Structure formats: structure tokens, C-alpha cells
């Protein structure tokens, strides 16, 4: 039974449980609500939740654990000599899974029978062709060990599914029966239900932690795999990024890091002055009317999806820069400095525009938090407004502004779409902002799109890059937080 229907049945059962539990409580109290310990609905919720929650929890755990369990069992069946050199077990296992999926599909489309699968041998049957006809492409002919493993994999998944349905269903029925039989007018239904709801709330809150753990571990495991296949020295200290499929790729992070930092620097050079001056003007000079018009307009820039900025970089800003700095004598400057629309400057400028509202609204909040009395004191001593801003307000707000700039930098480093579309794909160390360069995020996208093979260093390097990116942005955020906390003036 598909999981979807199992869940539907559980929900139905708990709905029935609600109605029955409520009725039973009312009957036990003789229809007199005052005799019940809790409100009638709580008796209903009690039965419904006891039927639903344990069963759903088990279902979730089962769905997570079953693939892992089967994987370890089946991969033990594959002899070590079957694993080709330079790859690992994962490649063979993905073949096993493919074959088993193919067999499932074949049975579903009635081109094979279960009996046939049980008796067929890898050499005698033209399995590769037959699966190919169903749209399951295999890299090589199916070897006997793989076929055996696939058969076992398929059997185990089927048994697992069946057992899951039975046990989960049983648990739901048990929960239902127990809570239903306990229901009478003196049963403390509300307390039980509230304890259950509390457990759910705690579960929801810990999901955030689970996500972080998921992020860190998923990248950590693959990164460790990557360093098993590729030297970590080359990754951190090499100077060439040249993935290829012959197996001697040079995968170094440094050229990508250079591109990332260069683009972020240009973006900050655009965003910080404009954003900061905009914030100062809005909070110190602008009349309430201008402020109420300009601030929401600025925030629209922040709400525009990054794909729009990416397209803007690729199709508008890039060609415009080429017209200025490229095309030789046809161009505006008559120089030939830029050959294609993608460049560090293209991505940096557009990213700068994207970050303006980010910098300005953060700085605006911080500048507005500086107490008015400080401004009044300065103005009273005869300073002009700009002197007040430069010598009193900005120094007081400086930790917050530095924090805002660091947050903007972390945004710029992690930004993907603008650099994917506007920065280019060439990994190199170059000082010219008109050159096409590439970034960490761009390479993650290009290494992980299309057919990914989780056994090759060319794919796994993306996880190492992702982990570096995660650490880098997290570090910047924490640094920003520390600066704000340590140097913040307490005015109240």
C-alpha cells in the first residue's frame, strides 16, 4: 500500500476516534457535561491523537531508517573485487538500485512476472536491453552479483513496506483501542492531550536544530568522502580549478574564493556608500512624507527575486558594459577590454544594487536607535547637522553599521543566481574586473546539476565547497553578532 494511502487511513481512523471518544465520554457522564473531568472535545482529541501520533512517528522513523538498513545489508553482498578501481561501493549500489527499480517498473507494466525475476540469470536474459526499453539506462551489462543484490534489494524493500504497513496500522489500532477503553467521565483527558500537544510543539522547535544537523552532516559526510578521493592540500592550497573526466582533475578552492571575494568586494563598494548615505538621509534629513514614500520603494528592491537580478545582469548590464568597454572601435571608449557580457563587474554591480536596501534598512534601524538627546547636545553646541552625523551619530552607531556590512558581505558571498548568470565560468586569478570569473556558488551549481555521480571527486567537491561556504557565511554572521554585542553602547 502506498504511503499516501496509509497516511489517509490513519487520518480517517483518528477522525472516527474523535467522534467515538467524545460520544463515549458523554455517554459515561449520562449526557451531563458538568460531570466530566474535561471538556467533551478533549476526550475526542485524546483518542484521535493516541491513534495518530505514535503511528505517524513510527512511520516517519521507518521511512528514514529502512533505506539505510537495506543499503547496509545489500552492500554486504557485493564482493570487494566487483568494485572498479578509483570508484567506491556507492557506484555499484546505484546500479543495484537502478536494476531493482527497473524490475519493479517491468512488473508494474506487466512485461515481466515475479516468477520470471526469481529464476532469471544475468547471463541468459537480455536484462539490459529489456530495462533500457523501459527507460532505465544501465552503464554496462548486469553482472550476476548485481542482479542477485538487486533481487534481494527488491525483496527486502517489498517486505519492509509490507511490514511497515502492518506494524504502523497495528500501532494505530492499539492506540485507538487503549485510549478508547480508558475513556470515562473521570479520565483526565485534558492533561493527557496537553502533554501530547506539548510534545508536538517541542518537536516542531527542535526541527530547526535537526535542519542544522542535517546541513552539517550531509555536507560533512560527502566532504570526508571527497577528501578520501582527492588530496585536501590541493583543495585548500592548490591554484588551479580544472575538473575533467579523466580522473586527474585539479580541484582547488582558491581561484573560486578569489572570484567570490572580488565580486563581493565590488558589490559592497556599490552598496555600502549608497545604502549608508540613503539611510543617513532618510533618518536625519528627510521629511516624514519623503521617508514614507522612499523607504517602501527601497524595500521593493529587496523583495525582487534574485533570478530577476540575474537576468538583468545577463541581458542588460552585461551587454551595456560590453558596449562601453569592449567591441574595439565600435565601442563607446574604443577599447577592447571586455569580450563577453559576463564579468566580475557585471555581477558585482548588479549584486550591489540588490544589497542597497539590505544595507540601508539595517543601518537605518541602527541610526534611528541612537538617542535624540545626543543629537540635540551636538546641535546645541553649534555643530551643523552633517557634523553631528559624522562626529556623533556615526561613531555611536558604528558597531551596528559594521555588523550590517558584514551581514551584507555574507549575503554577497552566498548569493547564487546573479553570479551564475552574470559572472561567467572561468576559474582564474585575475585583477581585471572586466574579466569573466567564477565563484564558489557557481561551481556548486555546475558540479551538481545534470547527472550527478556521487562517487566521483568532481561531484563530491561541491559538498566540500558547500561546507566551506557554510562555514564562511556562518563565521561572518557570528562575527557581526559579536561586534554588535561587544561594542554596542547601552543608552537606556
Amino acid at each position, binding site marked *: 500500500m502506498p504511503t499516501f494511502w496509509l497516511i489517509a487511513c490513519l487520518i480517517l481512523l483518528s477522525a472516527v476516534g474523535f467522534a467515538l471518544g467524545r460520544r463515549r465520554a458523554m455517554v459515561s457522564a449520562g449526557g451531563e457535561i458538568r460531570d466530566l473531568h474535561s471538556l467533551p472535545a478533549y476526550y475526542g482529541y485524546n483518542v484521535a491523537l493516541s491513534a495518530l501520533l505514535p503511528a505517524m512517528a513510527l512511520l516517519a522513523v521507518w521511512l528514514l531508517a529502512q533505506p539505510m538498513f537495506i543499503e547496509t545489508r545489500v552492500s554486504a553482498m557485493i564482493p570487494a573485487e566487483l568494485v572498479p578501481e578509483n570508484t567506491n561501493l556507492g557506484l555499484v549500489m546505484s546500479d543495484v538500485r537502478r536494476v531493482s527499480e527497473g524490475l519493479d517498473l517491468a512488473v508494474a507494466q506487466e512485461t515481466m512476472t515475479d516468477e520470471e525475476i526469481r529464476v532469471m540469470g544475468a547471463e541468459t536474459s537480455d536484462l539490459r536491453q529489456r530495462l533500457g526499453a523501459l527507460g532505465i539506462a544501465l552503464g554496462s551489462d548486469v553482472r550476476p552479483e548485481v542482479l542477485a543484490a538487486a533481487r534481494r534489494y527488491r525483496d527486502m524493500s517489498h517486505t519492509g513496506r509490507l511490514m511497515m504497513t502492518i506494524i504502523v496500522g497495528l500501532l494505530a489500532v492499539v492506540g485507538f483501542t487503549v485510549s478508547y477503553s480508558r475513556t470515562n467521565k473521570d479520565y483526565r483527558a*485534558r492533561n493527557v492531550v496537553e502533554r501530547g500537544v506539548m510534545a*508536538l510543539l517541542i518537536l516542531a522547535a527542535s526541527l530547526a536544530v535537526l535542519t542544522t544537523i542535517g546541513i552539517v552532516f550531509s555536507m560533512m559526510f560527502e566532504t570526508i568522502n571527497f577528501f578520501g578521493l582527492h588530496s585536501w592540500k590541493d583543495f585548500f592550497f592548490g591554484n588551479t580549478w580544472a575538473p575533467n573526466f579523466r580522473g586527474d582533475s585539479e580541484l582547488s578552492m582558491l581561484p573560486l574564493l578569489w572570484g567570490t571575494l572580488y565580486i563581493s568586494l565590488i558589490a559592497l563598494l556599490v552598496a555600502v556608500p549608497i545604502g549608508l548615505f540613503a539611510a543617513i538621509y532618510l533618518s536625519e534629513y528627510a521629511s516624514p512624507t519623503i521617508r514614507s514614500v*522612499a523607504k517602501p520603494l527601497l524595500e521593493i*528592491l529587496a523583495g525582487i527575486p534574485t533570478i530577476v537580478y540575474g537576468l538583468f545582469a545577463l541581458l542588460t548590464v552585461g551587454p551595456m558594459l560590453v558596449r562601453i568597454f569592449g567591441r574595439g572601435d565600435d565601442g563607446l571608449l574604443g577599447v577592447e577590454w571586455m569580450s563577453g557580457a559576463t564579468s566580475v563587474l557585471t555581477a558585482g554591480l548588479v549584486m550591489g*544594487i540588490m544589497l542597497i536596501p539590505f544595507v540601508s534598512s539595517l543601518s537605518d534601524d541602527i541610526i534611528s536607535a541612537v538617542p535624540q538627546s545626543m543629537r540635540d547636545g551636538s546641535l546645541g553646541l553649534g555643530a551643523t547637522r552633517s557634523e553631528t552625523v559624522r562626529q556623533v551619530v556615526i561613531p555611536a552607531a558604528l558597531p551596528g553599521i559594521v555588523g550590517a556590512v558584514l551581514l551584507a558581505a555574507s549575503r554577497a558571498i552566498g548569493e547564487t543566481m546573479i553570479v551564475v548568470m552574470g559572472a561567467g565560468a572561468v576559474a582564474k586569478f585575475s585583477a581585471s574586473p572586466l574579466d569573466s570569473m567564477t565563484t564558489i556558488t557557481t561551481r556548486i551549481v555546475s558540479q551538481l546539476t545534470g547527472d*550527478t555521480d556521487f562517487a566521483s571527486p568532481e561531484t563530491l567537491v561541491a559538498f566540500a565547497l558547500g561546507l566551506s561556504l557554510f562555514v564562511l557565511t*556562518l563565521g561572518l554572521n557570528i562575527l557581526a553578532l559579536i561586534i554588535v554585542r561587544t561594542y554596542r553602547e547601552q543608552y537606556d
Partner: protein
Amino acid sequence: MSDHIPRQHGASLLTKTARTKKRNAAETRFKAYGIVAISISLLMLLVLVTTIFSKGLGAYQQTFITLQVELLEKKLDKKGNRNLADIKKVSTFGYAPLIKSAVAAKVEELGIESGLKTKQMAGIVSKGAAAQLRDYVIAHPERIGDTVEFRFLASSRVDGYLKGRVHRDRIGNDKNISPEQLDLVDGLMAAGVVNKTFNIDFIIGADASDQRPEAAGMGVSMLGSLSMMLVVLALSLPIGVGASIYLEEFAPKNWLTDIIEVNISNLAAVPSIVYGILGLAVFINYMHMPMSAPLVGGLVLTLMTLPTIIISTRAALKAVPPSLRDAALGVGASRMQAVFHHVLPLAAPGILTGTIIGLAQALGETAPLLLIGMVGYIASNAPDSIASGLLSPNSAMPAQIYEWAKRADPAFYERAWGGIILLLFFLVAMNTVAVILRRRFERRW
């Protein structure tokens, strides 16, 4: 400072000294910087919006060619028994000659002089016209033998010519169009056969292959986005509200709560592509969920949106005054009842506003979708059920736009900008709803 000021005998407060003038000039300059900064930002916004609309509105209009096609029996149904299985055997290649002769007949009827061969004349009609004709014949086999009027899409070059994207003097190397064909188009346009009208297919239609930019539409990818948003809403609202209620109302002050709180604020700043990596590693590689499925996209976007929703929900809960909780507890409600019966309903508008803004963010997010395979895929079939809408491969609006921007034919760029207009329309609509909700229901205590 004072020791630098030379004493100025006889100086009056009413006359400006050189130093005052300098200070005032600095003041004016400083203010001007602020105005320039604001103007630059607003100018950028203006440039962005004008670019989007000037380049994208074209996608909502399309060039059509109206032709009378004679559905020849000897070509479409050789046996003449109107057997649907036999009719279906005729592939789109069998229909192409009908279109060719229809174009030729039209040209002859209007008396347009053209040195073109029939095949070249038919080149102004979209490559998808034969399939359109075939679909019609299969749906109406009884019309075989009649002459039926059809509106075919013009090829993308002809469409570009009418929209000013394709110019006569720049098509020297283009093998898809020739000046003679454009002359023919001019003639047909004068006769009203070729015209440009509103193109609903861009909004509700499916994506098309690289060869037929004129037929590409956003419809199917909109369904993909819709399915993802349903998943995000169904998961992130209950989880986000649950987490916020626990943290705001029940959590004891200890290190565990601290960890959770720091965690959530850090998750909000994690680059979105990292969530894509998580989705690829956990949902696809480990749990073997289908690649390119909106369900996986929805799960990834849920994780990404959760921190936003939690942060805004906590703010909404915090805004409900404690006296309300105390009053509820005072008349004998349990803590859970106080929260669910009194605090939550009062915080609901704020929570909804935050959720809508979170959803709008998720709708425009592209980077994680690239990693779980929602690009590089032609979303040509609309899903036929809810389950297939969630599980069968699909694209999403931003992913579709990215896909078009990558293709070589510039005719797709217009589609990409047009898609952005549609995407922005949804974002603006969602944000407007959020603002209205806040204005109407927000209570200040």
C-alpha cells in the same frame, strides 16, 4: 577645537565668515550625497522595472496566421473509413503538406507576387502547426474532407519581425528567415491574414522545445510552483507556529532553548544554495525521492522558509499583551488553553502576514531548485492529478525563467522577461494581501 579659531575682531554673527561658509558648504554637500544616494537607488528601481516591462510585455502578444486548410481525405484517411486508429497512424509529417498548400493557396488567392517556393512560404508558420492540425483532426475525424479555418502560430522570426526584434538588414546569416519571406509577411499582414493578438497560451501553456520559442508558455511551471507552495504552506505554517509557540510561551530559560534560538537566527542567514545541497543529499540521494519533483522542492523551500516564519510568528505572539494571558489563567484556563484560545487568535493576522511574506520569498527562490533538478527539463505536460502534481517531474516559475535565459535563441529572452512579469505579479499580489491583512486586523495595545 576652539584653539584653532583665530579671534576675529569686529566680526558679527550676522555676517558669514569664511569658516562658516566652508562649514555650510560641507553641510550642503553632505545632504546632496544623501539625495544622490536615494536617487541612484530609486533610479535603479525605475530602470529595472522599465526594462522588465519594455522587454517582457511582448511575450503576451503573439503573431498568428489565419489559414483555410483543406483536410484532404486521401492524405489523412486513406481507407476512408474514419477509423481513429488509422487516422492516428498519420504522423505530423503527413500533415505538413496540407499546411504548405494552404499557405500557397492563400498567397495565390490574395495575388501576392512572391518568388518563393512553397516550402519557404510555409516557413513562416510555426513548426508546431502540424501537431496542432493533427490534434484537431484526431478530435474531429468527421471534418476530414472539409476546409477548416485555423489560426496557426507564426514562426518566432516572423513574430520577432512584427515586434521589431528581427530587422531586415540584420538577418543575412539567419537560415530561418529571408527578406523574401518578410516581404510575404508584409503582404499577408496588409491583407489581415497575419496579425498580432493577445496570447493566452503564454500564461496557461506548456514549455516548448528549443526549436519553437513561439509556443513556449509558463502554465505548467506555474502549476509546479503552486504545488511547491502548497507543500510549503502545509508544512511550514504548522511547524513554524508550533515552534514559535513553544519558544515564546513554554520554553524554560536554559541552554537548550538558547541553542535552539541561536540556531534559528543563524539558519535565516544560511545561503539558499546550502539548502539545495541539503535537499540533494538527504531527500534525493539518501531517501531516493524523485528528482525534479515539486514535493522535494517544497520540502527544501519549507526548511528555508521556516526561520522567516518562526521569527515573524514570535514577534506576533510577543505583541499580545501578557495581561490577556493572565486574565485567561485567572478564570481557570490551563496554560495551553490560554495560548490556543486567546493568544493565538489575536496573533493570527501577524502570523498570516509573516507566512505570506515567507511564501513570497520561497516563490521567487531559484538556487536550491537548480540542485534538485528543476531545470534543464522541458515541462511540457500538465500533471493530471494531485499526486502526480507533487511527484512527477516539473519545473517552477523562476526555474523556467532561468531555463529560458540559458537557451541560445534570443526569442526566449522575451519569454524570460515575460515570465518575470508574471512572477512579479504574484509577488506583488501576495505582498499586497499581507499589507491589507496587517492594516485591517493589526491591533495595537
